[in-house]
């Protein structure tokens, strides 16, 4: 018998393929438990969630749109899409990143604390990143910033030594480019 072969009660894990990051849009009936259903599917089957946002987008039809950023091998990504699609309250699953990059944005609120020259530096950086001041005191600001996730990462990284207090981020929302809808 070949001692190098992994022999178990179960087949060995498949040889790992390259992992890709994908952004999925999932249109669902806005009903109780639907988010738990989607999240439970991901945790139960061991899929990754890098970001998840959800909100009702079509009020009369009670439809919500969930945007999920996930990672996996091409086979796992296909599984995720099919597993989502077979859920009863799921209307459509669209892989926004399958045909090239989609428009992806996040909104963040960034609270910083500082005095004197630090405050000037904070405002200069905010200006460079097109962040808006939405709250100010003598020793603090709250900035509102929108953009791609990495832009927000850069902004918070720069704010860190200046007196970053906390960050609240929405997670990614996304939409495809061009005239076609999902």
């Amino acid at each position: 018998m070949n001692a190098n072969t992994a022999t178990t009660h179960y087949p060995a894990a498949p040889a790992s393929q390259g992992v890709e990051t994908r952004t999925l849009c999932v249109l669902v009936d806005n009903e109780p438990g639907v988010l738990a259903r989607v999240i439970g599917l991901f945790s139960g089957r061991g899929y990754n969630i890098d970001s998840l946002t959800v909100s009702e987008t079509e009020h009369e039809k009670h439809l919500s749109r969930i945007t999920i950023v996930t990672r996996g091998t091409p086979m796992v990504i296909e599984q995720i899409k099919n597993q989502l699609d077979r859920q009863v309250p799921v209307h459509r699953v669209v892989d926004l990143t399958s045909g090239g990059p989609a428009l992806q944005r996040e909104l963040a609120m960034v609270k910083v604390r500082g005095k004197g020259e630090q405050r000037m530096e904070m405002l200069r950086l905010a200006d460079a990143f097109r962040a808006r001041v939405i709250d100010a005191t003598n020793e603090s600001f709250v900035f509102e910033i929108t953009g791609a996730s990495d832009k927000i990462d850069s902004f918070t990284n720069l704010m860190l030594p200046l007196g970053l207090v906390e960050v609240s981020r929405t997670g990614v929302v996304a939409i495809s480019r061009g005239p076609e809808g999902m």
Partner: protein
Amino acid sequence: MTDMTGAEMVIQALADQGVEHLFGYPGGAVLPIYDALFQQDKVNHILVRHEQGAVHAAEGYARSTGKVGTVLVTSGPGATNAVTGLTDALCDSIPLVVITGQVPTHLIGNDAFQECDTVGITRPCTKYNYLVKNIADLPRALHEAFHIASSGRPGPVVVDIPKDIQFAKGAYSRPKEFQHRGYRPKVKGDLDKIKEAIDMMAAAKRPLFYTGGGVINSGRAASDLLRELVKLTGFPITSTLMGLGAFPAADRQWLGMLGMHGTWEANWSMHDCDLMIAVGARFDDRITGRLDAFSPGSKKIHIDIDPSSINKNVKADLAIVGDCAHVLEDMVRLWRASAIVPDKKALQAWWEQIGTWRAKNSLAFRNSNEIIKPQYAIQRLYEQTKNRDTYITTEVGQHQMWAAQFYPFQEPNRWMTSGGLGTMGYGLPAAVGVQLAHPNSLVVDIAGEASVLMTMQELSTAVQYDLPIKIFIINNRYMGMVRQWQELLHGGRYSHSYTEALPDFVKLAEAYHAHGIRCEHPGDLDEKIREMLEVKKPVLFDCVVDPAENCFPMIPSGRAHNEMLLGDAATRVEDAITEEGKVLV
């Protein structure tokens, strides 16, 4: 539109859906429904002894009839006891509607008596579930539940109904429209792809049909169409545990079951074929063995109603999403229309090759005059029941595999076994459900003594409703499959797989007012089986067998189809597993 209480709506909806038997167990949170049951005679309630038994009985009913099985249980422990059955039904794609009582809406989330988060607990083990918090939603939820359970890939659906909703009054009507517009299972296969499949089949030199439970679930027509297509093409066919009976085992094109305990010819054909036509099967790990060595030289056509089954474990070269019966119908039609001339020479060579594998006689076992061999017991059972109208259920373990190997099925819906989940204790309650559906047929639970003790209390149900089920216990005193794996993987250290104290099954039968028989000698088998079949009561048959017998052939643990072990290899099996393999079991 008729005004009625929520409890009355439940009964009315069940009656409107044509439900004959409702398996259940009462409790505080379903008392209004039980009161409504008391005052009607449309739906026949079967009182089980444990909620798990109710769900398995409903599964047995569903699998032997093709209809939706129904269950009624109370909140809290009633619902949690049903979870094993729900998971079993989800794994094996069995259509069920399970109604659970819930504490009144104002107490939900309050840790009330017998409260549990039923929809939360059952979300991952149902196809869909409902918590009905408004009486106006109840008729729709009940009828949708039947639609979801039985359409597409079937599965269990839970409807959780708080007690105040059962008392509330509202208007009842059967909804005309289905509210979940996103739920539209695809039943017709893509015709271009089916044409492509026909072309691939026409060109194949070593083709093989690999069929599964999807063919059975698709209904009788699917089995008939499968038979027609297999006859037309002249291709060999094998099936999973779940698919047994879709194609008659007596036919010469039948290779026997495949997979971990499948036949030599079925598994070698899987390994060496050049075209695999998978119909309603899902490439489960008990089937594929080692994935990187799974049928390396074949193109694979995968027909399944559930797109998530395709490309999950094995990449399909051609995927056809659709209901088996619809796709098979198109295939038969196109094959006939296209006047295909298959490569007769190649097919003949393929059949000759299969013949040499068959000659291995992989199910052979050494019989004995002193001690009953489990395989022999099942053979004798088959011989005495084959000309009757027989349904077989099983528990889980060695006896289950022996039943699959030694009890050939000629028709679909005759074989009820827990395939995906592997639920010990499935067979006895399932037999209760089967017998109710087929009161004049013979229903035998081929059981193991360990499994059957998990749901033994349902014998009491069988006695109560005069259901003459036969529980044929292959008694080796071991959890046989556990013991076999301990022999393989753990140096024969039989940790807790031996039952030191078993009940006297004959006396146990008598205590339940059933009939008990014990058989310890091969020479007595025929006469005692005859007795079992003649008794008009439920029978516990304690068939005392060789405790050391192992189940062969076998693909040891994650090896490839062409690395099977045969019975006479039993002494060498310990060498078959490596150290790193043991970790992953």
